[in-house]
């Protein structure tokens, strides 16, 4: 008879041990222990669903205390059980503690810090941003979380994507207007294009930095390249994806890449994409208003090269590969050297090699 060795009992042991582990996991995992005691919404709304409920602050400003309960249900927080008390931590019951804020803005700037409780990463990113710097410098209108995201009725900020420029445009009205008429903004508003950049694509989201610094400047070609060097995306719109690689071997591009790699903080003015194409107002090159349209190109070049003549625009190879049609001089030089260099080097190389062999052979023969 076969004797059962311990090895045959292993599956059974595994089953038992696994079952014990499973049970213990289910038993002792703190199931949603962090969820606050949030049965507050219904209680709060019993008063705050009154549209006429308001408060006059010491500055004379009126603060509406009305909460639209229908809209609240569309917020990302309320349906997930994150209710009033999660943010209004100081209010637990009625009557409420007194409100001592002078202005609405003061209240906002105090209240928004509760976002930090659940969103510490994004909160600390904003502290590193241009907006936080503006606030530190004394501009209390510099945006805080709720200015972009809303307070009670918070929706995913990128749904729809067209909302993003509009949000930034609340303060940056001029840039928003210009952007809307650009090739990017136009595609976004007209066709809800999913590929064109919105504000945050280039400027970042929470830790938005000053785009006027030298670091931002030298890194800017890479920023454009993140879409414009993407073969697949550019093919959709019939655009060349070689613009960046051809730029980076051009006079401007080489200069910028050296400064970017080695001296990113040193002031340097070699042209980057936006110097010629524009920033928020980028248009298609064949648009007659485009700064890189053939008829406007000279004026654009003259921004950095004052007084150059009309021949000057021919010096720009225009993001195109070497070809007889577009860059005849470059084509001839390129063709010449692609033949001349190898021919010369092979002929001279072989001749010297033969001379060397004969020289050494003669020397060896003499010494024999």
């Amino acid at each position, binding site marked *: 008879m076969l004797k059962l060795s311990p090895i045959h009992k292993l599956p059974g042991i595994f089953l038992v041990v696994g079952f014990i582990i499973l049970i213990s996991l289910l038993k002792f995992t703190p199931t949603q222990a962090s969820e606050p005691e949030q049965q507050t919404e219904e209680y709060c709304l019993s008063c705050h669903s009154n549209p006429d409920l308001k408060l006059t602050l010491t500055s004379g400003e009126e603060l509406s205390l009305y909460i639209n309960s229908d809209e609240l249900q569309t917020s990302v927080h309320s349906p997930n059980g994150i209710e009033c008390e999660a943010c209004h931590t100081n209010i637990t019951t009625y009557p409420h503690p007194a409100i001592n804020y002078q202005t609405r803005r003061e209240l906002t700037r105090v209240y928004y810090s509760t976002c930090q409780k659940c969103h510490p990463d994004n909160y600390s990113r904003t502290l590193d941003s241009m907006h936080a710097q503006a606030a530190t410098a004394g501009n209390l209108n510099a945006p805080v979380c709720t200015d972009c995201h809303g307070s009670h009725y918070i929706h995913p900020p990128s749904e729809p994507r067209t909302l993003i420029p509009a949000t930034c445009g609340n303060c940056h009205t001029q840039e928003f207007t210009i952007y809307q008429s650009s090739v990017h903004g136009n595609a976004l508003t007209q066709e809800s294009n999913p590929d064109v950049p919105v504000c945050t694509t280039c400027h970042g989201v929470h830790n938005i930095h000053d785009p006027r610094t030298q670091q931002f400047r030298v890194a800017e070609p890479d920023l454009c390249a993140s879409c414009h060097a993407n073969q697949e995306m550019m093919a959709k719109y019939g655009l060349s994806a070689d613009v960046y690689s051809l730029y980076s071997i*051009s*006079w401007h591009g*080489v200069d910028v890449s*050296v*400064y970017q*790699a*080695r*001296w990113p903080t*040193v002031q*340097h003015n070699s042209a980057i994409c936006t110097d010629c194409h524009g920033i928020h107002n980028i248009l298609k090159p064949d648009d007659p208003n485009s700064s890189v349209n053939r008829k406007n190109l000279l004026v654009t070049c003259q921004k950095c*090269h004052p*007084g*150059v*003549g009309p*021949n*000057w*625009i*021919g*010096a*720009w*190879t225009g993001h195109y590969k070497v070809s007889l049609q577009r*860059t*005849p*001089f*470059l084509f*001839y*030089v*390129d063709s010449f*050297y692609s033949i*001349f*260099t190898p021919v*010369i*080097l092979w002929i*001279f*190389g072989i*001749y*010297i090699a*033969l*001379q*060397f*062999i*004969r*020289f050494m052979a003669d020397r060896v023969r003499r010494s024999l």
Partner: protein
Amino acid sequence: MKSQQNPTPSSPDNRVTLVRTFPRFKLSQRWEHAILLLCIAILLLTGLPQKYNTTVWSQAIISSPDRLNTIQQIHHITALVLSALVLYHLGKAVYLIARRKLPGDMLPTLQDISDAWNMLLYLIYIKKQKPAFGKYNFEQKVTYWFLFFSIGIMIISGYVMWFPETITRILPGGIVPAAIMAHSTEAIVTAIFIVLWHFYHVHFERLNLSIFSGWLNEDDMRTYHALEYYQLVRQPRADQVSGDMKS
């Protein structure tokens, strides 16, 4: 003209050997070569780090934007010196041509082609003898004319890159990127040519310092410039002291 004592103190008879020397380059030509050598060396040293700006050695040289600026200034000043040298050289040639005094030794001839062919046959063991050469053999002519044209290309393309805004007032803009490419490529071809061709012939094959000293000894004359040597030795002319034996 010049004599050299062969220092052989240990030889038993302690004979003094006289070595006849032949003038090969004038003082002005030796200076021209020295300045040219210096210019090319400085231009390569300041140009190559700019071309290969991503390499470690280049970044060691160009360690700051100020250093880059200095290097570009050195490059430009040296380019001016080289341009002056070229103008002097061409001016002298024009002057000599006008006076019908230009020695035609350096001009390429059909003889050079047959010399090159015979040299090739010699190198691949088909001919037993090297062809006999005159004052400048075809290798030296190739050196001269190759550098003549490549320096021409470097100077023209260099000035286009230096003053593109001015030059495009007259010439089409397309020559600017073409000049950048030509300058960059020609520099490499020239550098390789000098190292491969010129250095082999004047350092490795034999140490030929006549461009610095100005003279060649009799052995070298007989071996490498046989035609010139026999011409000088057999037909000594009154105006040409070169073949004279003086001690």
